[in-house]
């Protein structure tokens, strides 16, 4: 019964753009209500959010972009269409393309500044917290399951999701991770530390390297064994930070600190090793007065004057929105020192604004989304001719979707309604299990997910011939191919609906002509299956653009 109702709702959506049977439309009451909201522009928080485009920080950021383009002699690309921007936004914040249901709503919203308002809407959706927690967690704890006895990745993710849902200031989230104590099953944040247990022993070096990378955006791992050849980090600096973590111990009552324990480094120079006192490489006045070494360090890392913290966060969030970090030519967690590269002035601007707004991650996202860089078309301006487009955000980059975005988009395209926590249990289960298998087979880039990487042959084979893609393109009365075949009245509206479901756009006249011929030759069912297959394998589907 429930399924039947849902199907009726789905049908309506499929045909909304063409001749709508009015009797059917009335069945989708909840949907109509939301669309009424959208039309009046009366979305939650709308009144305050609409102004972000005029915020001084957005103006400054756009001026900074313009400065870069002028210095490089670049001509900026045109504006992308709102549908394309919505697709980017949805991929970045929810890990999927927009559903047909959302597209219909979006099309009904004709008041100005709708992208910025939809950004807020997407941020308020629970799918954002779930998805972003997983993305952020990769730089904190990686992707490995690790030692189940003392480390529970699921608890960590769960904790982080709740912090995002509550919109807890990011400096507090980070402090909690560095200084947390307690049981890893109860206090989710403790898993940031228990993740660093190797062979039953706590590894302060591992957690030090990770802390500096994830929160300060710099790599001092090399300084673990020797002075860094390029930067000013020394082995002493590294050991000094590591000493803050050296008192960690674990007992049945959870993770605590043994305040009497000293940090002994066994470097082979002396028989018994050498004692290292906690220290920081610069500005020790940022340390707090706390007794607990980790609390002192947390205060130092997140100190308002520690611009590395805010710059690193701005670069990382930018990376999650665009698929590549602002500093495009380096790993996301390896920024040069502040003030050494004027091309990265954007990070200073965004970082400062992030801090002044109470380290509010959602605010930072909204600012970046409001900049010209996010609105840019991926079509290079004609004047570019044979010139290589420089990496300065004057053209939106083509970035390969990550595996979870590919599978999330395939599953969403297969469902006309939005796949979220309100979806039918069966669809959510399918999404969860199939997505995990697919990501595993597709190759999960793990913590390195923002690095540029090539597509592989096994991935192409999986998309073309894999079981899941066969399932998702096949005629089934409950999913998009079957629904579209059954309800959309003409091949033209069927083709258009498949395009919207999968590429978030309508077909061009040439495409329409080609596929109308295909529909005539193959018959509707086969043609719709083939059309979904074609979409899933097209570069437009698997690249952010």
């Amino acid at each position, binding site marked *: 019964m429930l399924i039947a109702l849902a199907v009726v709702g789905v049908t309506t959506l499929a045909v909304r753009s063409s001749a709508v049977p009015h009797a059917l439309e009335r069945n989708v009451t909840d949907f109509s209500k939301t669309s009424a909201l959208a039309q009046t522009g009366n979305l939650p928080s709308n009144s305050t959010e609409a102004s972000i485009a005029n915020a001084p920080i957005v103006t400054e950021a756009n001026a900074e972009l313009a400065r870069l383009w002028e210095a490089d002699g670049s001509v900026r690309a045109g504006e992308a269409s709102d549908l394309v921007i919505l697709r980017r936004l949805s991929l970045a914040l929810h890990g999927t393309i927009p559903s047909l249901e959302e597209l219909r709503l979006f099309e009904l919203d004709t008041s100005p500044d709708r992208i910025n308002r939809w950004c807020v809407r997407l941020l308020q959706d629970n799918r954002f917290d779930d998805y972003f927690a997983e993305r952020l967690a990769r730089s904190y704890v990686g992707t490995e399951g690790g030692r189940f006895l003392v480390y529970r990745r699921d608890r960590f993710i769960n904790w982080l999701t709740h912090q995002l849902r509550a919109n807890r200031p990011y400096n507090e989230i980070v402090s909690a991770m560095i200084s947390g104590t307690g049981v890893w099953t109860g206090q989710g944040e403790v898993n940031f530390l228990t993740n660093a247990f190797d062979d039953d022993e706590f590894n302060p070096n591992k957690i030090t390297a990770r802390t500096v990378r994830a929160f300060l955006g710099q790599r001092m791992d090399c300084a673990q064994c020797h002075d860094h050849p390029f930067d000013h980090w020394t082995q002493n600096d590294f050991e000094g930070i590591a000493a803050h973590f050296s008192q960690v111990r674990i007992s049945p009552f959870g993770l605590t600190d043994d305040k009497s324990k000293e940090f002994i480094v066994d470097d082979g120079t002396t028989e018994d090793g050498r004692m290292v006192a906690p220290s920081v490489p610069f500005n020790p006045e940022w340390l707090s007065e706390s007794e607990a070494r980790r609390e002192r360090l947390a205060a130092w890392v997140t100190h308002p004057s520690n611009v590395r913290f805010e710059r690193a966060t701005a670069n990382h969030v930018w990376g999650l929105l665009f698929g590549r970090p602002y500093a495009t030519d380096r790993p996301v967690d390896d920024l040069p020192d502040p003030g050494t590269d004027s091309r990265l002035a954007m990070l200073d601007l965004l970082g400062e604004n992030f801090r002044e707004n109470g380290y509010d991650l959602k605010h930072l996202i909204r600012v970046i989304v409001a900049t010209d860089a996010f609105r840019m078309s991926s079509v290079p301006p004609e004047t570019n001719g044979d010139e290589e487009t420089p990496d300065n955000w004057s053209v939106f980059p083509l970035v390969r979707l990550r595996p979870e975005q590919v599978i999330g988009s395939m599953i969403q395209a297969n469902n006309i309604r939005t796949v979220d926590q309100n979806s039918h249990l069966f669809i959510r289960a399918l999404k969860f299990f199939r997505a995990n298998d697919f990501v595993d087979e597709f190759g999960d880039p793990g913590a390195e997910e923002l690095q540029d990487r090539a597509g*592989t042959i*096994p991935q192409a084979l999986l998309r073309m011939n894999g079981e899941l893609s066969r399932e998702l393109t096949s005629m089934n009365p409950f999913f998009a191919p079957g629904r579209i075949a059954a309800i959309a009245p003409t091949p033209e509206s069927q083709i258009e609906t498949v395009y919207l479901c999968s590429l978030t756009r309508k077909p061009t006249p040439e495409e329409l002509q080609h596929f109308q011929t295909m529909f005539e030759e193959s018959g509707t069912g086969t043609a719709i299956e083939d059309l979904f297959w074609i979409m899933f394998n097209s570069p437009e589907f698997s690249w952010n653009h």
Partner: protein
Amino acid sequence: MIHHTGFQSLFSSLTRRQALQIGLGTGLSFLLPTLEARATEKRGKERPKSIIVLWMGGGPSQLESWDPHPESSVGETVSKISTTIPGLEIGDTLPQMAEQIHHLSVIRSMVSKEGDHERGTYYAQTGYRPDPSVIHPSITAVISKQLKRDDIEIPQHISLASGDGFVVPRGGFLGADYDAFRIFDPGRNIRNMRPGVDEARQQRRLEGLDVVSNSFASLRQKPVAKTNHQSVIEKALTMMSSSQLEALTLEGEAQSTIDRYGDNRFGRGCLVARRLVEQGVRAIQVVLSGFDTHVNNLDGQRNQFAILDPAFATLIADLKERDLLDSTIVLCLGEFGRTPKINPLEGRDHWPIGFSCVLGGGGLAAGRVIGETDPNAARSNEEQLTKTTPPKSPVSIPDLYATILTTMGLDPYEEIQSPIGRPFMMSEGMAVNDLLPERLR
């Protein structure tokens, strides 16, 4: 219907047959048949070299296999049998290998620095310890890159019968192109390798793909070309229509042959590995897991070695018979061994100091036994698992790989660059002189 037959358009190269009809001289060389040097046509020492790694996942017990010590106080264990190498005795779990071992050598003094499965596997497959700033390529990835062949249309780095993700050898900083291509159930179904629809329909799909791709690419020619999306799909299509795919099946193999290897995932994996070597594939891993016997060690080890023994022995005999052994290195290795001390659950725990591996073929010296362990020596400081006295003539993982690379004609000290320009040697170890081919010693 719109016909796309021009090679200018994207995705138009379809089936092998069609490609051959039109394709000569168009520069799409990967669509052409393998014109020369088909590996099957060359035998003996001159043949391009390959490597097969039999990966014993979980930590096989040296005491119940290549290094038995029933006379020492190592708990309930196997008895010894003599072998075709004079003086060498191995566990009674490996009767068929006892007949083939003279083609190979045994190292009983392997030492690792990692006692955890995931870290140990990483180290034993790459020769480098895990490092948060870089992912090292596995040795098989390095070999498949350094000895890459242009005439192979199927993957040149393949993992057969693999289970856990971390056991699949990675390309690491060499790139995902060098990740091992995974086949879960060797010889049974070649997942994802065949189109799900008939030829005419596949053709229509590719034509449609051409249309959609063109409308995306027409405005962004350079950026789209840089994505390589098209060439990856073309290579996948080439593979799907390649006759070399047959090497991944068991077509033409008698059931009696399959039974000699063992009709299980690992046995069929070893048989497919032989077929891949014949086809010229460079680097193949076949996985047998289940050696992590913290509980009831003896039964667990016996079960797994009963799967290994016929498969390994038949593989060696088969390679020898087909004159492929001189060009194929076979290495049997796990991430570490198991403790001489039996735990309260009749199990053995992880033991990274003084475990065994077996290797041979490809020109390596045969019939050698390297190193010696004293299982009693460990009992005095058993609580210090990773800091026990090393065995006689210890061989590290990097040493092992330096030996293999040298034998395959590569220079282990040649540096390869990570993407951020950090140079790494292919292996930092010292080749084991006794194992090298005579001309290289």
